[in-house]
């Protein structure tokens, strides 16, 4: 019962969607139904008419012309409908792909990163990644209307001939369809169980083609290992294939036996009726054409139904994802006064789908214009901290206050305007250089280029290259940057955004000593008015900072200037000593 409910809900969503964007679809489906009905009825009349004419030795041209015209026109109608309804599912599917991506970019980050969603993106997109989803749903619904019309007409004609036979066929069809749907569900389940084999295969296939794995594959001579892995997978695949096809072969064999029984019963009935003189030879041939037509429509129709109900749950997952609300942009107007502070007030946080706290009762304040370093061991949650600050995550407990007002209450897009982040993983898009810096903002070329000069990319990119495409994905002559250069470029992007707070997550991890030194001096000297928060493992950088925050054990363990923390002789002192000892002169 619950399954039926899910099924109906999914189909309601699908039909609603077509009603919204493709109203004509329903018209073409209806017309298809009518045309098939007319066609199916008239085509079986032809052998009867012809034989009757032969028997009576008179040719009724008028009747022939009428019948043939009807057949020809209804046939054209069928084809026309097909031309019209086939691309509907295609268009809706492609529209959904775009909508899906829009959703990816618009829902709150914590929900997007929820493992329940992120690990399941594959499942969510299943109805749109292959034709055998949304697209086939609309196609097969439309096709079914035609086959259904033929089945109805056939039963109708049989009803006139022999009620018992008609009722028999009717009941047969219902049982037959039901059995088929059940079986196709079973096959779907078997296939689901084997899904992991294909996932593994996909993984191995990709690492052999992925250049970032190529060095390991070669240097560690992994060819043989790869071959063994691949062959095991292929064997598993064959075993699994055998299992599915064994089952579907069984169904096919049963299907043939069913058809044999059905045909025998129908032909025998016809023969008996013929010898009882209930029908003549002409009618007999009409009914035997009808039997063939019915058989054909039945197998096509059942196939349509199988496709339509095929894994209907997958639609639910997709629509549920679409129903997640976007980052809302309501709330108070965000005004950034001359003087401000952001205060973490007893903030606790854990990820969605996990109950392990990353932070417990976190308290600290960021004041305008300060340069703050966030220090801590790998995996302690430094990046999470800046994500909380930027409202990419919501605290599970406690509040973050901007001048005393909860940051959650501001208009999100205006609050975002406060921050210019450079994250650890740098994303350069296959757009032009300028678009990568400012996206589609109106922006003066010179000022944009100035940012590139500031970060030290002057030699790499010239002013007239602002329109050049980046990466080689779309343009073979595109601009390719190394790791260090990418880091600099991301910094330029942050500068261009001209926002008050720079947030830098390990900004110098790929920079050489000189570039690193320049970087910190620039930060110290050129961005006096900016508030800067950065995460770094290089404790040398902290000497530029007004404040140092040491994160450990779910909260801030130490907070103060470099000198204060050194005097404390705590964790910071220890870290600093470990790293600096190699630079001390006396030790050599």
């Amino acid at each position, binding site marked *: 019962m619950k399954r039926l409910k899910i099924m109906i809900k999914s189909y309601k969503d699908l039909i609603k969607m077509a009603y919204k964007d493709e109203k004509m679809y329903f018209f073409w489906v209806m017309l298809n139904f009518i045309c098939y009905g007319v066609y199916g009825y008239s085509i079986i009349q032809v052998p009867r008419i*012809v034989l009757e004419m*032969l028997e009576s030795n008179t*040719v009724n041209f008028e009747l022939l012309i009428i019948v*043939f015209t009807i057949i*020809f026109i209804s046939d054209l109608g069928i084809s026309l409908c*097909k*031309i019209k309804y*086939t691309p509907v599912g*295609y268009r809706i599917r*492609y529209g959904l792909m*775009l909508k899906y*991506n829009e959703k990816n*970019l*618009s829902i709150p*980050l914590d929900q997007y990163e929820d493992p329940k969603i*992120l690990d399941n993106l594959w499942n969510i997109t299943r109805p749109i990644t292959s034709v055998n989803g949304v697209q086939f749903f609309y196609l097969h619904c439309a096709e079914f209307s035609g086959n259904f019309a033929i089945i109805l007409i056939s039963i109708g004609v049989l009803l006139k001939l022999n009620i018992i036979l008609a009722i028999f066929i009717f009941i047969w069809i219902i049982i037959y369809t039901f059995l088929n749907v059940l079986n196709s569900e079973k096959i779907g389940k078997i296939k689901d169980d084997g899904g992991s084999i294909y996932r*593994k295969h996909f993984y191995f296939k990709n690492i052999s*083609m992925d250049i970032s794995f190529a060095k390991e594959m*070669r*240097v*560690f001579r*992994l060819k043989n290992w790869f071959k063994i892995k691949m062959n095991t*997978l292929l064997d598993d*695949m*064959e075993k699994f*294939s055998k299992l599915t096809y064994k089952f*579907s*072969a069984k169904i096919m*064999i049963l299907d*043939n036996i069913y058809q044999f029984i059905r045909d*025998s019963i129908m032909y025998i009935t016809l*023969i008996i009726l013929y010898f009882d003189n209930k029908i003549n*030879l002409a009618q007999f*041939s009409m009914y*035997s*054409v009808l039997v063939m037509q019915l058989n054909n429509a039945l197998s096509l129709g059942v196939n349509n139904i199988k496709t339509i109900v095929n894994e209907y749950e997958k639609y639910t997952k997709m629509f549920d994802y679409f129903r997640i609300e976007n*980052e809302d942009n309501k709330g108070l107007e965000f005004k950034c006064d001359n003087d401000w502070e952001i205060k973490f007030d007893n903030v606790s946080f854990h990820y969605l789908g996990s109950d392990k706290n990353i932070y417990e009762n976190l308290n600290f304040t960021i004041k305008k214009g300060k340069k703050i370093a966030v220090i801590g061991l*790998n995996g302690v949650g430094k990046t999470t901290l800046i*994500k909380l600050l930027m409202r990419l995550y919501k605290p599970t407990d406690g509040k973050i206050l901007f001048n005393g007002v909860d940051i959650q209450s501001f208009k999100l897009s205006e609050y975002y305007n406060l921050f*210019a982040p450079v*994250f650890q993983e740098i994303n350069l898009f296959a757009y032009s250089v300028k*678009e990568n810096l400012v*996206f*589609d903002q109106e922006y003066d070329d010179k000022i944009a280029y100035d940012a590139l000069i500031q970060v030290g990319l002057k030699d790499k990119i010239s002013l007239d290259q602002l329109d050049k495409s980046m990466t080689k994905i*779309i343009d073979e002559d595109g601009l390719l940057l*190394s790791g260090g*250069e990418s880091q600099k470029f991301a910094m330029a992007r942050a500068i261009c955004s001209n926002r008050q707070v720079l947030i830098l997550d390990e900004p110098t991890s790929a920079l050489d*000593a000189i570039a690193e030194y320049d970087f*910190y001096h620039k930060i110290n000297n050129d961005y006096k008015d900016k508030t800067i928060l950065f995460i770094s*493992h290089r*404790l040398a950088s902290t000497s530029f900072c007004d404040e140092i925050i040491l994160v450990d054990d779910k909260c801030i363990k130490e907070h103060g200037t470099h000198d204060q923390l*050194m005097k404390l002789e705590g964790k910071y002192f220890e*870290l*600093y000593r470990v790293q*600096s000892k*190699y*630079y*001390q002169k006396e*030790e*050599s």
Partner: protein
Amino acid sequence: MKKQLSVLFFVLKKTHRLAPSYIILQCIQTVLETSLIFAFIYLPAFIIEILTSDMQVEIIKKQVIIFLFIILVVRLFISIINKRISIISEVLQFKMIAEVNEQLLDVSYDKLESPKFMDQLANAVEPIDNLGANTNLFLALPKIIQHFITIVGVISIVYTYSIWVVVIVFMMSFALFLFNKARINEEINNAKSNFDQHKTYWYYLRMMKDPSIAKDVRLYKAQPFLLKKAKEYYQSVIDSGTLLYKNRDLRALAGRSFSVLVLIFMYSYLLINPNNVTMEASYLILLVNACTTLFIAINMIQTELLTANQSLVYLAQYLKFNEMVTLSKDDGTIKCDPEITSIEFKDVTFAYPDTQKNILENFNLLIDSKQRVSIVGENGCGKSTIIKLIAKLYIPCSGCILINGIDLNLYDYDSYLKQVSIIFQDFKIFDISIKENITFENNDDLKLMNALQESDFDKELVKFNNGVDTFTGKAFDDNGVMLSKGQEQKLAIARSIYKNGSLMILDEPTASLDPMAEELVYQHFNQLTKDKLSIIISHRLSSCRMSDVIVLIEDGKVKQLGSHQQLMNAKNSYANMFNLQASNYLQTQE
């Protein structure tokens, strides 16, 4: 045509090798299916004939059932053979791809970086993987044979009645052929002219799906821009797709309408011809049936030939790729000594393929005896390039690299690489078990324990439920663990220790590690490089304190070379760099 045949021959040969029974099963299947077609031509005529004969009802019933039963038996055979064919064909496709994957591992590294080669690879794999070219070919080939037999058989039936009927059916088929050809040409031109646009569109779509862009996109409010960019190409993609469907349906429309016309023509012809008045009803039905089947067969054989041809065009790329791969092997024969004691760069000049700028120019460097060597220099000075050259991932444009005094190119690559352990800057951890990540195919528990201890990874191991059998990543096991950067680094080190090469290379081993983890790597460094020739690259000059020799590279040449103390005393580039980095630490000590 000749080219198509050679591709066909190649694919058949390959198929026969990968799945020996496949082709013979297809042949049997074809014969059975063709016999079914003829059974259905005869069935209505047969029933009417026995009805109009003087046979008894019971016998007639019996005969009809026997006829139906024979059809059933043939169909059962088809089901069984079909099962075998489906299994084989499903796995066959994967086998073909797997073979390409394995071949790829022999392809030289620089080829993988060339867009041209990767395009060729995509062109070879895509048709088999996603377009089903191979599957389609093997669906089309038996159908072509089947239709061909049908055409010949039906003509021999109809021929006895009237040759003109055959001629007219053929003429109608030809008209249909001309119509279809125009449609197909339109499709091909359309696909060609929009190829670049579509490539861009799919790239944009894939990009938007990538979770790693999520943060940037939100903070910099790039959503509208990203969508706008994709939408620029959306309409063109939709239009092409719609055109494709429209064309296909138009072809179907033409096919349907023409077959109705054939039906109309046949009935009219039979009725108008006065001779037919005396004709048996069953014969008339047979003729109509036969002619409709004939028309459908002629029509279908065209489509199948087109499909086969299209598949062969795609698979030609697969053949081309195979030829490319078999050509690309070059390997020496000298077995490498069990110990690497010297590396020498002699006048090496190197630029990356398809680029102008020389990364190394007349580069000379000799490292002998088992020293610890640090290579330092600014971003982009060619440090990592040197490592790629030593690993023979690239070959110098001129000059040579001597290992133990012998040109690297003369070595048997396998035996040489056995002696080399490298941890690359962007090393990769596979989504397999921890144990396998370290040992790969040759598992030795004792060595494994040792590697785990020395890399300090055993401390991490206790956090996982399944110990060394825990999976990393989620591709293979939903309970797989996601390792932190620091843990991954330790795992990579364990892998290197396990391999135990006599040449040890570390490229930026501590870039993303916190000070404690960095210190740990340094502490292990001595152990790791004991009795070995070792090279370490790092931006953190602290690592140089442990090295015997430091090599400073600038402008593609060795600028300075010597011990830390020597270079500090020289008060040159190295000393400047070191002091610069140290100043931040020393400042506050004063």
